[in-house]
C-alpha cells in the first residue's frame, strides 16, 4: 500500500500541521512516511501545500506531480491541483470560498464543510482536524487511535488537554463528509 496525498490551501489553515499529524500517525502504525512542504515566499499569506506519502515500503520520490488523494482548501489550490489527482483517485474539498467546483468525472469527489463546522464548534483552529476526520472516513489508512498516539507524541505535554477537542473535531469530520460524485 502506498498513499500519495497533496494537501493544499491558504497559509494559516493548518495545512502543514495536518500533514505532519498524518505522517506521525503513519509512523505510529509502523509505516514509512515522507512530508514535503512548499517553502518560501509563497507561504506568507499565500498558498501553502504539502505532499504526504504513507507507505508499507521505503518511500521513493518525496516530490510528486500526481496524487492518489487531493485535499483542497481554497480556489487557487483547486485550480492548481484538480488536474493532479490520478484517475480513480479522491478529491476532498471544503466548499467555503470555492467559486468553481471540481468538474472531473473520472475521480471520486467528496465535500466537507470544515470552515462552517469548526466555526459552529466555536474554534476555527480545529478546522484542519475536521478535514482530517473527513479524509480518514473516505480513506481509512490511518486509524484514529494512531492519530491520537501521534498527537500525544508530537505535541508538548502542556497541549495534551486539547487532544479530546481534536478528537471531537475528527469525529465531526468523519460524520459530515459528503460524496458528490455518483
Amino acid at each position, binding site marked *: 500500500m502506498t498513499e500519495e496525498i497533496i494537501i493544499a490551501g491558504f497559509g494559516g489553515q493548518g495545512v502543514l500541521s495536518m500533514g*505532519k499529524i498524518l*505522517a*506521525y500517525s503513519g*509512523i505510529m502504525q509502523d509505516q*514509512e*512516511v*515522507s*512530508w*514535503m*512542504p512548499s*517553502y*518560501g*515566499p509563497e507561504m506568507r499569506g499565500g498558498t501553502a501545500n504539502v505532499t504526504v506519502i504513507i507507505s508499507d515500503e521505503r*518511500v*521513493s*520520490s*518525496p*516530490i*510528486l*506531480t*500526481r496524487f492518489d488523494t487531493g485535499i483542497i482548501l481554497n480556489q487557487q489550490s483547486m485550480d492548481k491541483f484538480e488536474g493532479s489527482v490520478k484517475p480513480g483517485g479522491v478529491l476532498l474539498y471544503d466548499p467555503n470560498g470555492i467559486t468553481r467546483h471540481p468538474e472531473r468525472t473520472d475521480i471520486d469527489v467528496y465535500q466537507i464543510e470544515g470552515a462552517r463546522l469548526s466555526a459552529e464548534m466555536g474554534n476555527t483552529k480545529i478546522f484542519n482536524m475536521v478535514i482530517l476526520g473527513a479524509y480518514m472516513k473516505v480513506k481509512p489508512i490511518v486509524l484514529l487511535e494512531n492519530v491520537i498516539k501521534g498527537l500525544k507524541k*508530537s505535541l508538548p505535554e502542556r497541549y495534551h488537554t486539547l487532544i479530546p477537542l481534536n478528537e471531537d473535531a475528527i469525529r465531526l469530520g468523519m460524520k459530515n463528509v459528503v460524496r458528490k460524485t455518483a
Partner: protein
Amino acid sequence: MGELKLMKGNEALAEAAIRAGADAYFGYPITPQSEVIEYLMSEKPYERTGMVVLQAESEVAAINMIYGAAGAGKRVITSSSSPGISLKQEGISYISGAELPCVYANVVRGGPGLGTIQPSQADYFQSVKGGGHGDYKQIVLAPASVQEMSDFVKLGFELAFKYRIAVLILSDGVIGQMMEKVELFDQMPRLTDEEIYEKFPWATTGKKKGTERRIITSLDLDSHKMEEHNHHLQRKYKTIMENEVRSEAIHCDDAEYIFVAYGSSARIAQKAVDMARAKGIKAGLIRLITLFPFPEKQLQAFCKQGVKGFLAVEMSAGQMVEDVRLSVAGCAKVQHYGRFGGIIHSPEEVLRAMEQQIIGG
C-alpha cells in the same frame, strides 16, 4: 532500536551533531538550512552535553572558528546554504592545507549568486573539484533521506578524524526541508581535554613542559617542503579513493539503462525506475553516496554487464555527468537531464528523458 522521530532533515542533522559528541557548532542562518541553528538554539545542547552553539557574525567568521577549534582537536561542525558556503571556501582551503578534521553541511539552493531559496544540486563542481584554492580534496557525502542526514554526521566525524580531512555533507533544500521517520543513534560522549591530548598528537592543546610544540598551519615558504606536503596530501586522497567509496545499486542486476543520481534526485529517479519497470523497461539506479571519492569502478562494472546507456539526473545544467563520462570512458551512451534554478524535476520528466535521450535517442 534507537529513538524514532518525525523530523526535518535539517533538524536531524542538528540533533545528530549533539549526539555525535560535537564540541561546537558555529554558523550563520540562511534559508533553506536555518532550522539547523534554530534547532540547536532551542535544544540548548550546552545544557545537555556542554556543546557550544554560537551564531557568528558571518559565514567567514564561522568557518574560521571551525578552523581554530578543529586545530585544538575539537569535534566541530558548521552548516550553510550555497552563497554562505561560497563565503566559507577560503577557510575550507586552509583547513584542508592544515589537515584538520571538521564536518560541514551545504543545504544547496539555486544559484548562481543569491539565486533562489528553492532546492538545487548546482554546487557539485564546487564540492568535488575544490571550491577554494589549491590541490585539495574533501570527502563529500550525499544524503538522500532524513535518516542519512543524521547517520552521515556520525560517519562524517569518523572519516574526518580518521583522515584529518574536511567532510562535506552535500544536501539540498528537499532533504533539508522534508520530514521523514528517523531512528536516532545513542548519545556519544564528548572527549575530555586529556583524551584529546592523548589521541591527537597534532592538536594544539597547550604546550606542556618537556614536549614538542605543536603547530597548525597551511603555510610553508620552503617550496620543496610544500611540494612534499602536497605529495603527502595526494597519497592520503588516493587511500581515501581506494577505501571509502560508497554507493547503492537499485534494480541494477539485469538493467539495460541506468540512472545515475545522488541526494533528492536519486529519490526521484528511484520512482522513475519503478515507473519504467512497470512499462517493461529494464531500468536501474546507481545512487552515489560519496561524490568524492567518486564510485568510478562501480560505474565501470556496468559496462562489462552490457548496460546500453546512462542518464545522469541532477538539479543542475550538467555537472556530475562529467564524472560519469570520465568513469565509463565511452563504453555506453551518457546523457544529462535536470531542471535547475530552484525547479525540481518530476519522476515523469526523468523517465521521459531516459526514453527520449537514451533509449530512443
